[in-house]
């Protein structure tokens, strides 16, 4: 059987993912492949690598285009891909929050009639609101979420926050920390059967190199 195919997200988590994998004993330094190539097949690499759009990484794995993948928990929460979620990785750490303008208190926000919440994560937000018993209209945006309250598009937002700098710049505050988010190692449900030894081995090794972080 050939090498495992691993899907690595481009963007925010790409460098961190490559740095993490480079620490594995069987892996050469990966900074060389930091190219614009989307599929990397090299003899000295223990895997075939596919670079994917961050939101697509777990979909590649779900449909078996990759056996394993690295993906943000935020994407898993939104897409609910049918994949094995095997390991929490110490990369891409941030928090999913409900945030509102500094001028609006928490009580004012939750009492508001016809509440509007802007987000890039409509499925996740709908489930969260349902569980919390909050009735609101969701405004689905692709970017610049934090701009929605100042321009009057929404009363609050559900989004990822790492340092909080963007929130402060837009005069927003965290109303509720919904869930911590970080990178995850996921596996295709058929690959985990066929390659259970190799995947198990990789999980154990990753656990080892991340345990003292």
């Amino acid at each position, binding site marked *: 059987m050939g090498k495992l195919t691993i899907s690595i997200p481009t963007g925010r988590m790409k460098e961190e993912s490559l740095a993490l994998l480079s620490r594995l004993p069987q892996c050469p330094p990966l900074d060389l492949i930091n190219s614009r190539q989307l599929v990397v097949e090299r003899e000295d690499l223990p895997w075939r690598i596919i670079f994917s759009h961050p939101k697509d990484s777990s979909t590649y794995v779900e449909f078996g285009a990759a056996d394993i993948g690295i993906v943000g928990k935020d994407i898993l929460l939104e897409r609910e891909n049918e994949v*094995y*979620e*095997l390991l*929490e990785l110490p990369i891409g750490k941030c928090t999913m929050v409900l945030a509102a303008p500094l001028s609006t208190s928490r009580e004012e926000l939750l009492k508001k009639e016809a509440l509007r919440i802007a987000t890039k994560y409509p499925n996740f937000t709908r489930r969260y609101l349902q569980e919390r018993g909050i009735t609101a209209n969701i405004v689905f945006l692709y970017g610049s979420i934090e701009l929605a309250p100042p321009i009057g598009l929404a009363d609050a937002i559900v989004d990822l926050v790492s340092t909080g700098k963007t929130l402060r710049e837009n005069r927003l505050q965290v109303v509720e920390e919904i869930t911590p988010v970080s990178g995850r190692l996921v*596996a295709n449900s058929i690959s985990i*059967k*066929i390659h*259970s030894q190799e*995947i*198990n081995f990789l999980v154990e090794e990753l656990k080892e190199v991340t345990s003292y972080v």
Partner: protein
Amino acid sequence: MELVLGMKDSYPSEVKRKREMEFVLRHLFEEWGYEEVEPPTIEYYSTLENTLGDEAKERVYKFVDRNGKLVSLRPEFTTSIMRMYSKKELRESAPHRVYYVGKIFRYPSSPLRVEGELTQLGLENLGKNGIDTDAEIIALALSALLALQELGIEDFMLDIGHVGIFQGLLSSLPLSPPEKLFLKTLLKKKDFVALENFTSISSHPLFPFLLHLPFLRGKREILEETKNNYPLSPPLVEALNYLREIWDIISDFHLEEHVFINLGLVRDFDYYTGVVFEGFSPRSGYPLLTGGRYDELLEKSENSLPACGFALFLERLMEVQRVNPKEKHSFFITITYPPFLRSSIFILAEELRKEGIPIIMEEKGEDIQVLQEKELIYQGKDEEKIKTIILERFKSWES
């Protein structure tokens, strides 16, 4: 004239492949002494309700009949067949070996998918429990997949697991009922990160076993290894021993080549009580065959009837089928003839059809023409000569 969302039309070449599979499988099941049954397409929703999980319930097509009762298109056959055989006189004349072929209906799991209607072919052994029956069913599942090899279903595998492993774990772990439910959900969602953070049991000696479940897969040795590596409780050891006995019977049948023991195998339907199994191919993300033992499906209606069975998903099998492009062509012969030859051409066509040559008659033209897919091969008026040419051509196409 729009196609209903989630539904799919099948054109001749596809239907042909499906019927070929059906033919091979029906033949096999009959050889093993199974007889065909045909439950109706709709059932009262209340019949199905108890056997389905929450997600499966949402995916059932439901509507109201003229008396205001909720009815459903069958989402699978097993419950219908259990209903058929729950009658007292049939329970008393057990065992019954039956098979079925037909459509099942489930709203697609996503609006982007086309899988509202699937063809299932499966069988049930009703009224008998015990390891020999389980082994018979697994051997038949393997024989079914092996029989499909000649139709291009290659590199399949069959994973065997046991519900007792998960149940044994649940009974051994000190958890409240809501925690047990939560644990079950996490396992179904395959979220091992959340499992690892399940702090109330993280110091339990069986916790490492739980976390390793997806990797505990292999041939017979995996059973001994697991017993040596983890402090298993008696119900777990019992389940493992059962799987070893099954393995030994399957290997006495010389069928173990494609079989793997998979201790982490969890099936979607909640009604399984013993051995469970799943056939799949590296070329598809969905199982090709699923089955297991479900002795308590009828227990709620106090007419217990032990049963074991499986179903094959024909569309998924076709997805992984390697199709020989030559065989895909359907072929028939078109004879074009002038009106005055109508009567003699009809006699000739009937003769050829009896020999298994598909003939299409087209009345027009002045000359007699013999065509195969628009290719003209003969022009003339001699009937005997046409017949000879057609037969010769047919033989050369056939070989």
